[in-house]
């Protein structure tokens, strides 16, 4: 319990430092920082309207963060979630072209499943390339993301284009019955529930099931996994496929709940933001939930800052950038034995102290 408290305190401290630094940054531009902090809170969590906006943005972040977290627990650094998102959205929009869909919950589920399957295949491909060909998954997933975006644009502007969309090429809109609506009359769509359920379920899966434990062994200590005969390749592919399915689902949900069709707005950087969310949550699916809500909140507050204080809309990007950098850097302070550090600060005792060489950082 104490350890997990310390785990949470460090990023929170870094976040406070980031907010202070952002205050200094806007103060240099002549804006009152206290007003900025107040508006940030108001725009993100101030009232029910802000909460709706925040949660709506948090939903895809949770799912794309899982696309990094799951492979990371199996020892892979996947940064191509953006590719899974766009292909997931494309598959969701394309399915009704191929087969007639029932316009009810089953149809919506099928559309979402198509998105998840496309995402799963794309990220599993990166995992397979690494397991069977030795291609580094970080690079291959990045390349695959660019290829996916090109495919997406080609297909949306080519074969699947709705001729009625002139300025902004899009696919045909999903039927009313296939869309994902708001929950109980709010703007928050069911995608949030999907995100929450996915985070909780995968967190429990990793923590409690034998398969989840095997994935963690493969990621944490490949040698031990080999010694006890775990099927490493299968587990890694499984982790990649589940992560990819989450990101693909995020794309499908964005299409079914927000855009209603697949168009270039889908390429909004949720995949890249998910990388940072997952790293800050230390690849723990359950910790992804609060981190995604926090950064969704920053995004939601952006328009308020822009309207009230006339700050550029990129000010939220600056804040997020500072926050991510500081939280990632705060990892360096983790595990420091503060008591020992305090002892070291005292005047040194007479006897000679043996200096140990610093241990090389594990990459």
């Amino acid at each position, binding site marked *: 319990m104490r350890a997990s408290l310390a785990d949470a305190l460090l990023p929170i401290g870094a976040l406070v430092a980031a907010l202070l630094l952002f205050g200094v940054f806007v103060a240099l531009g002549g804006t009152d920082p206290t007003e900025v902090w107040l508006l940030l809170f108001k725009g993100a969590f101030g009232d029910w309207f802000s909460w709706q906006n925040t949660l709506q943005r948090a939903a895809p972040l949770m799912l794309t963060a899982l696309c990094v977290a799951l492979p990371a627990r199996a020892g892979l*650094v996947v940064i191509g979630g953006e590719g899974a998102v766009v292909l997931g959205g494309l598959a969701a929009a394309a399915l009704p072209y191929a087969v007639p869909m029932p316009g009810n919950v089953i149809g919506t589920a099928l559309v979402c499943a198509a998105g998840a399957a496309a995402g799963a295949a794309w990220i599993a491909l990166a995992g397979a390339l690494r397991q069977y060909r030795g291609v580094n998954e970080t690079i291959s997933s990045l390349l695959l993301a660019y290829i996916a975006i090109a495919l997406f644009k080609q297909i949306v502007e080519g074969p699947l284009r709705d001729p009625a969309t002139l300025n902004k090429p899009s696919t045909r809109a999903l039927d009313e019955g296939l869309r994902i609506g708001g929950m109980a009359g709010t703007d928050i769509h069911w995608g949030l529930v999907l995100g929450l359920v996915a985070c909780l379920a995968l967190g429990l899966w990793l923590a409690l099931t034998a398969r989840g434990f095997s994935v963690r062994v493969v990621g944490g200590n490949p040698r031990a996994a080999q010694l006890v005969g775990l099927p490493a390749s299968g587990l890694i592919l499984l982790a990649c496929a589940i992560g990819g399915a989450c990101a693909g689902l995020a794309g499908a949900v964005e299409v079914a709940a927000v855009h209603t069709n697949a168009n270039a707005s889908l390429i909004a950087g949720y995949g890249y933001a998910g990388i940072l969310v997952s790293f800050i949550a230390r690849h723990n699916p359950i910790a992804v939930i609060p981190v995604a809500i926090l950064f969704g909140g920053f995004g939601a507050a952006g328009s308020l800052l822009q309207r009230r204080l006339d700050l550029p809309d990129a000010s939220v990007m600056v804040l997020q950038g500072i926050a991510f950098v500081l939280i990632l850097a705060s990892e360096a302070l983790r595990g420091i034995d503060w008591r020992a550090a305090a002892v070291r600060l005292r005047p040194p005792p007479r006897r000679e102290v043996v200096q140990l060489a610093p241990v090389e950082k594990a990459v």
Partner: protein
Amino acid sequence: MNWDMLLAFSAAILGGALRVGVPFLFVSLGECLTEKAGRINLGLEGVLVLSAMTAFGASHLSGSAWIGVLAAAAAGALLALLHGLLCTLPRVNDVATGIALMLLGTGLAFYLGKPLIQPQAAQLPPIDVVRMTGNWSESSVVQAALQVNPLLPLGVVLALALWLGFARTRWGLLVRLAGDSASATKALGYSVGGIRIAATAAGGAIAGLGGASLTLFYPGSWNEGISSGQGLIAVALVIFARWSPLRCLLAALLFGGAGAIGPALQSIGISQSYYLFSAVPYVLTLVILIISCRPGSVAAGSPGELSSAR
């Protein structure tokens, strides 16, 4: 396809390769230097956008495009220096830090560059290759294609200098040593962290020149869509070039040319598969990786300490 169309088509590809290839060249050289020292910098995208904005702003304020170029290199070096310093801290992941700096650099550039979207800035004067080499072509498409970015010769010189530097100089050997074996570097009494920080910052300065060529030559204005991910894809270019600065030159022109196939086809009336052609370099890089990698061994020619090569 008749002769005129073929000429127009090849000129469009050549012109595209020369124009679009220049930012690719600088970011790939910057990334190559960084990776040779054993570290990956995904934050070059942020470096590129921030330095593009800085170049435009400095040129706008000072009236001299070359001051803009210098400012861009300085801005690039500063952001990359931050990456270098952060990654030297224990337990800080270089991939995640790179993505965070991509966000920070882009955010800073958009924030500070907001007032720069409308104004004009002094541009770099193009080098008219056709006129310099004796007016050998009457064709206006050829003449237009060979209006070369003045930073391109600088890039070629840099590529040669880096190549020679890695092979022949003490500094180059130290960078490669830090990239290939941290323990050997330490055993010889050098600071691995120091070498990597210096290489990362220098790489950022080089990548900053790419940003300058975006806003001061082609497309020649500042807006928020100025970079189409060239900074991030520098990583792919360096793999494509197998960590050789000379091959970076080739790779940059190839990536630039491949990006120009789509528009070139459009200019002669073929508008199908526009986006598929732009993806050709990525597919090629992936294919090269698949062919050249073997399970359990690092990619040929890659620095041994590089986390992304394992």
